[in-house]
């Protein structure tokens, strides 16, 4: 042991110092380029950061796969939701005419948009897959207003880094970074397969984020908040799912 120890000790020490400084520099660069997810701390932070950073470097402008009409699922699965609250039921009884979406936070012109207004905005249609973290999938045609249009309309400030979106249902909210918020396929969807978006699938309004798993596509959207910091929201990990132990970034 003794004849190998000193040189190995020095080499290992130098390698460790180089490695540690390398990681420190990489962390600074990554933070600067927005490659660190809000749930980067903790036991699984390393893997999560690698996944998010790798996918952001590779997929910033990539488009979720689109399918042909023939591939639309005959039997899409809506998944379960908590029992719909009194406020939702009251709005539903009036055919959602009083449904409004509040857009606040770092916006030059914060707004409260009625459902009718939102439906009058220019739409985009896509046939994309909804994939659940449980492993099941379906394909549907979604029509809605690109989120980027709404951000533009309210005058999102240049320092906005995340859009926090909430359901009318209690404790159901998520957030996405600007790569997804400004992505042309990220829609505030109000139609599915050529009809009004059915309630079980998130009607009247669902935020579709087709490059991420279904749990990022929150149903019954009634508030969007533009922010540069997720810390003040919930436990600070950027979503109800990440607050309860799921990954904030769900591109994998």
């Amino acid at each position, binding site marked *: 042991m003794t004849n190998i120890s000193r040189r190995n000790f020095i080499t290992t020490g130098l390698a460790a110092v180089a490695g540690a400084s390398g990681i420190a520099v990489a962390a600074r660069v990554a933070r600067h380029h927005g490659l660190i997810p809000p749930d980067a701390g903790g036991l699984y932070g390393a893997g999560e950061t690698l996944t998010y950073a790798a996918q952001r470097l590779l997929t910033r402008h990539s488009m979720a796969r689109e399918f042909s009409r023939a591939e639309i699922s005959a039997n899409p699965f809506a998944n379960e939701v908590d029992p719909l609250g009194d406020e939702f039921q009251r709005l539903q009884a009036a055919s959602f005419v009083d449904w409004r979406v509040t857009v606040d936070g770092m916006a030059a012109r914060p707004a409260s948009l009625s459902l009718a207004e939102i439906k009058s905005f220019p739409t985009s249609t896509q046939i994309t897959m909804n994939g*659940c973290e449980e492993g099941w999938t379906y394909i549907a045609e979604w029509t809605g207003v690109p989120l980027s249009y709404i951000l533009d309309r309210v005058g999102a400030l240049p320092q906005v880094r995340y859009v926090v979106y909430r359901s009318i249902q209690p404790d159901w909210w998520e957030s996405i970074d600007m790569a997804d918020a400004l992505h042309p396929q990220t829609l505030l969807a109000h139609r599915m397969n050529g009809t009004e978006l059915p309630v079980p699938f998130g009607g009247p309004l669902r935020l579709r984020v087709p490059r991420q798993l279904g749990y990022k596509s929150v149903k019954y959207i009634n508030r969007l908040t533009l922010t540069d910091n997720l810390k003040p929201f919930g436990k600070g990990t950027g979503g109800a799912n990440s607050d309860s132990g799921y990954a904030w970034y769900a591109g994998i």
Partner: protein
Amino acid sequence: MRASHGTILGVSDSACLPGAASAAPVAVPTKTVPSRHSALVRVTHWITTLCFFALLVSGGEIVLSHPRFYWGETGNVNMRPWLNLHLPSSRETVPTGYGYVLPDQNGWSRYLHFQAAWLAVGTGLLYVLFGFFAGHFRRNLFPAASDLSIKGLGGSLVRHLRFERPGKEEVWSYNSLQRLTYLLVIFVLFPLMIWTGLAMSLGFTSEFPLAVRLLGGQQTARSLHFLVTILLVLFLFIHVLMVFVAGFRNRMRAMITGRATPPTE
């Protein structure tokens, strides 16, 4: 103090002595023992083992949230699976026939799965680079042409099926059937796991749609991911069984310390 012939940190891969790649018996002086496995092979072996169990357990937990498998792009509880595991599920929405729902473990399972996958891929890359550049594959994994005859492989298979203890010629290297199995695992099954895994990622396939199109769809990728897992678990069982057949203490010591002892001490 014991003379240290097996290097601790060096990558001089002496898993076999020159000539041991063929079946020719090699005279090895028992006093001066080279290492059966180089340090890099040993370290990557155990990191891979750790990752494999992390991936297996977390993957199993994820499957429990939807223990049904489909072909093509789409599959959900409204569709017919080609395989229903008939296990209890961690989701109420899955019709299982069981009167209870397991607790949801997908949060940490998915975190652990991807973290272990990163570590496994990094370890695998290190191993493959080392294998090519330090000659580990050439010396220890690529079988000699003479061993690839039907007769040679058949003989090896018969010796395996009889659970014969390997002879002296296998102290420093692997037999031909073992070599082919390791090559299959390293160059076919592991890459398939990575491919089918990435093909399920909506983010990854947005940039590389062919990764999932070539396989035949997202649900096909998921089914193949599961089927290859079964092959890897089968490999694990046979691998551990063979370690016992060859002499558990000896083989474990070789994979931990690198030192090996010929069977007739």
